[in-house]
């Protein structure tokens, strides 16, 4: 759970209009610009190629390092392997001393930021100058980068002008072209005077000993051309087997990072190159390469995190992250920010430093969709969260709640009590608009749904299923929200599947899918629930298991298998359940969809994609077709239909201050369509979006696809 100080950092970031403006503008344009940059290129196959070469390097790391050292040395480079950041710093300091270095210019190197290299060198009395514009601004301001690719994205031109004015002792105007001109002139002097250059690299080619640097400003070219001593500081994850393998990364890096086809410069250095010395002579320079570990190997040796080697540091995961866009990088607290940064911080700094930022992940999965290295960042963050939960335990209130949920009888009887106890707050409405006292925050910007009078498990017994010559049997897994809040969705599911000729059963022993426990880092309770449901659903006795909540479906299909993998007989049953489990729209569509029908009454509908359904199960076309095939329905696509609504389970309770602005953006996109109904396939999204609309625009209704099909296809209209 996030601590107080962390919460304070979040609220400061949210209050910072400058930050919100800069990040918001970029976030708004990035997705479209990135898509345009990939136009005519097949992103999945580029990604596949990257995965191939990088995973090979990861599995042959020692071989790669040996080969690189051999080839680079053969070309005249001096290669040093630094186990820690301290080793790297010591090597550079000593080299500087030995070479009589007084002035250093650096082109961008996140590895040097990671080990706070500048501080160490400046303590030796050496003048160290960052030359990447963003890095230079931060150096003058005494700040850390907030983004891997655009380090100073959190600052305005006014702030930059103030910093320049203070540093240069003359007034700089907040005009970007002028500020850039000033930087050029100031840093040009530094380049010409420097006796040592330090660079990072984007790739280190084992086959040829080549280092590749991708830049736009030209500082890497100057750094590798002018000074007589050159040091490359390179993390071992930059290794790539063969020269031509670099092609794949060069195809992806600029497109994913800054939506460019290629950067202004790509610089490839193999061994020492000639340089001018002070006496005017031209000789090969003193050339050193440091391959740095500093905690990386520990990360690659961990099977759950080995894939981080495939990261090419494009930062596209930051650019699409709804949470990052709101709070920016500094809230993450360390050098590496955003989703991937949380993971790197955990291994390269400390677990303790990752404890707060890992909470920021919504688990929406957008980053995994755009990642050119095919990293499932949310899964890795979840793994961190669970490990932390196991090691440190959860706070008492969370633990208590999750213990209650994993005790089915207690949990369900409490929900039944709640349906009565809530009466003073519902005022006869299906929603709770205001809560008293400290709970008021939860209903400030959105209403909460009331617990249904009669849970679905009781409604089920009253449903008459009229299936002549049934084709088979389907078990319905309702999940908590359909069971206790939205039972009508369940009626829709049964009606549609009956029409397809299937009888639907409702196994009584089913309970919560365990997602709240999983996403809060409580693997024990998640496992308990997995076993309870595997046994209750008894997949062996039915043809399919259907769920109308994608988070539950993901648990049935994937999480259960992982949670019981150590028990062979349970694992076999979980595998059977996984094979037979489908989300409602997907199953209905696989069974051939519904006969043409519908009441024909015109209805403008827009569709919101649930994160789990689209990105975990790849289902987005099926439900749109089911809806469009219903006469009367006019489907209007909203902008960013697959952007998270901000619910994310307990996230909306943990971080209402982040959940709300994310929801607001969704509501704006919904309103812009002019639709009267928002169709969704996830009861969680339904709860979040309808809660927001109830407060802001109660004329727009949010309806689950199953319920909408049910309503529009009933011969005699039976509106609730």
């Amino acid at each position: 759970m996030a601590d107080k100080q962390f919460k304070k950092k979040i609220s400061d970031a949210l209050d910072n209009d400058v930050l919100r403006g800069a990040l918001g503008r970029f976030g708004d344009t990035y997705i479209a610009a990135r898509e345009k940059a990939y136009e005519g290129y097949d992103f999945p196959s580029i990604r596949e190629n990257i995965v191939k070469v990088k995973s090979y390097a990861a599995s042959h790391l020692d071989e790669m390092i040996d080969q690189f050292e051999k080839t680079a040395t053969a070309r005249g480079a001096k290669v040093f392997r630094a186990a820690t950041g301290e080793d790297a710093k010591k090597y550079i300091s000593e080299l500087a001393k030995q070479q009589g270095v007084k002035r250093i210019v650096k082109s961008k190197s996140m590895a040097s930021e990671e080990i706070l290299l500048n501080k160490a060198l400046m303590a030796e009395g050496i003048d160290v100058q960052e030359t990447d514009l963003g890095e230079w601004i931060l150096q003058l301001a005494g700040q850390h980068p907030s983004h891997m690719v655009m380090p100073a994205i959190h600052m305005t031109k006014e702030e930059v002008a103030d910093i320049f004015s203070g540093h240069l002792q003359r007034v700089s105007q907040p005009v970007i072209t002028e500020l850039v001109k000033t930087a050029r002139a100031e840093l040009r002097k530094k380049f010409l005077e420097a006796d040592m250059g330090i660079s990072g690299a984007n790739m280190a080619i084992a086959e040829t000993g080549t280092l590749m640097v991708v830049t736009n400003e030209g500082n890497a070219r100057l750094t590798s051309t002018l000074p007589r001593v050159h040091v490359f500081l390179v993390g071992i994850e930059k290794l790539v087997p063969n020269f031509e393998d670099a092609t794949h990364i060069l195809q992806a890096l600029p497109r994913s990072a800054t939506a460019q086809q290629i950067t202004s410069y790509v610089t490839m250095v193999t061994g020492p190159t000639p340089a001018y010395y002070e006496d005017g002579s031209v000789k090969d320079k003193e050339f050193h390469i440091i391959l740095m570990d500093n905690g990386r190997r520990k990360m690659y040796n961990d099977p759950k995190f080995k894939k981080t080697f495939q990261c090419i540091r494009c930062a596209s995961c930051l650019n699409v992250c709804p949470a990052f866009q709101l709070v920016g990088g500094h809230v993450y607290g360390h050098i590496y920010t955003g989703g991937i940064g949380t993971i790197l911080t955990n291994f390269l700094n400390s677990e303790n430093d990752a404890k707060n930022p890992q909470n920021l992940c919504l688990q929406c999965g957008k980053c995994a969709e755009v990642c050119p290295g095919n990293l499932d960042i949310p899964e890795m963050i979840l793994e961190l969260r669970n490990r932390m939960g196991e090691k440190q335990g959860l706070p008492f209130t969370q633990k208590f709640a999750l213990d209650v949920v994993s005790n089915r009888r207690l949990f369900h009887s409490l929900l039944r009590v709640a349906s009565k106890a809530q009466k003073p707050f519902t005022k006869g409405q299906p929603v709770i608009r205001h809560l008293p006292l400290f709970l008021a925050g939860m209903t400030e910007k959105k209403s909460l749904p009331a617990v249904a009078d009669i849970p679905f498990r009781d409604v089920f017994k009253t449903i008459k299923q009229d299936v002549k010559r049934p084709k088979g049997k389907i078990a319905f897994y309702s999940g908590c929200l359909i069971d206790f809040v939205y039972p009508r969705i369940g009626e829709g599911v049964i009606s549609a599947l009956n029409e397809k000729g299937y009888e639907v059963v409702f196994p009584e022993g089913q309970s919560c899918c365990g997602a709240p426990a999983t996403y809060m880092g409580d693997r024990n309770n998640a496992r308990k629930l997995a076993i309870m449901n595997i046994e209750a659903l008894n997949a062996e006795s039915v043809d399919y298991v259907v769920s109308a909540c994608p988070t539950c479906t993901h648990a049935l299909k994937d999480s259960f298998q992982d949670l019981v993998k150590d028990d062979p007989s349970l694992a076999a049953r979980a595998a059977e359940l996984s094979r037979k489990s489908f989300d409602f729209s997907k199953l209905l569509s696989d069974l051939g969809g519904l006969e043409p029908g519908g009441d024909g009454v015109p209805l403008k509908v827009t569709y919101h994609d649930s994160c789990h359904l689209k990105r975990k199960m790849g289902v987005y076309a099926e439900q749109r077709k089911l809806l469009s095939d219903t006469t009367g329905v006019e489907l209007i696509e909203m902008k960013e239909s697959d952007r998270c609504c901000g619910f994310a389970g307990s996230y909306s309770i943990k971080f209402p201050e982040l959940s709300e602005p994310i929801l607001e953006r969704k509501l704006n996109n919904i309103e812009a369509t002019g639709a009267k109904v928002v169709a969704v396939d996830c009861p969680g999204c339904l709860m979040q979006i309808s809660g927001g609309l109830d407060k802001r625009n109660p004329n727009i209704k949010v309806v689950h696809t199953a319920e909408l099909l049910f309503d529009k296809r009933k011969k005699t209209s039976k509106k609730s």
Partner: protein
Amino acid sequence: MANARSAELYERFKAKLEAVSGECYRVDTEEEAGKLIGTVLKDKGVQNVALLEGEVAKKGNFAQQLKSMNIDVMSDNFRKVTPDAQAGITQVSYAIAELGTLVQADDDANVDQRLCSTLVPIHVAVVRTETLLPNLAETMSTIHRLPRIPGFVGFITGPSRTSDIERVLTIGVHGPKQLIVVFVD
């Protein structure tokens, strides 16, 4: 060599380069290249230029031509002259049509090639049309097939740029503010 293939590659290159604020020209002979460069530089008010004489520059008598147009030509002592020169002229090894990219891949990693193309505010790059390569992949394999990878290989695509302040694109940070590419058939 004005065949259909090179014409097609040239058009692609030109469109890509112009999309990133570069200027693109194409001439038949070395002589014409020198004349064109002189005219373009004159138009920009350039009075002196650092000229690294490549084989095209020599054949086209660039130095003579530029001098006759009253442009000061500096063709040695580059470490001294390039920080203040108004423009630099070099010949590059390849051009990539797919991206509008120039490739510097001198076998000897010539430091003057880099000075004349990096420190100056205007870089004029001369390139043989026949060295146009269709795409990045073929370029990488072409470099890979060389007897050895040159010590310095530089891809240049348009002028130097930054978006580090407020994500606003600004041309000309540490490298050239203008890039002029002249293809010689």
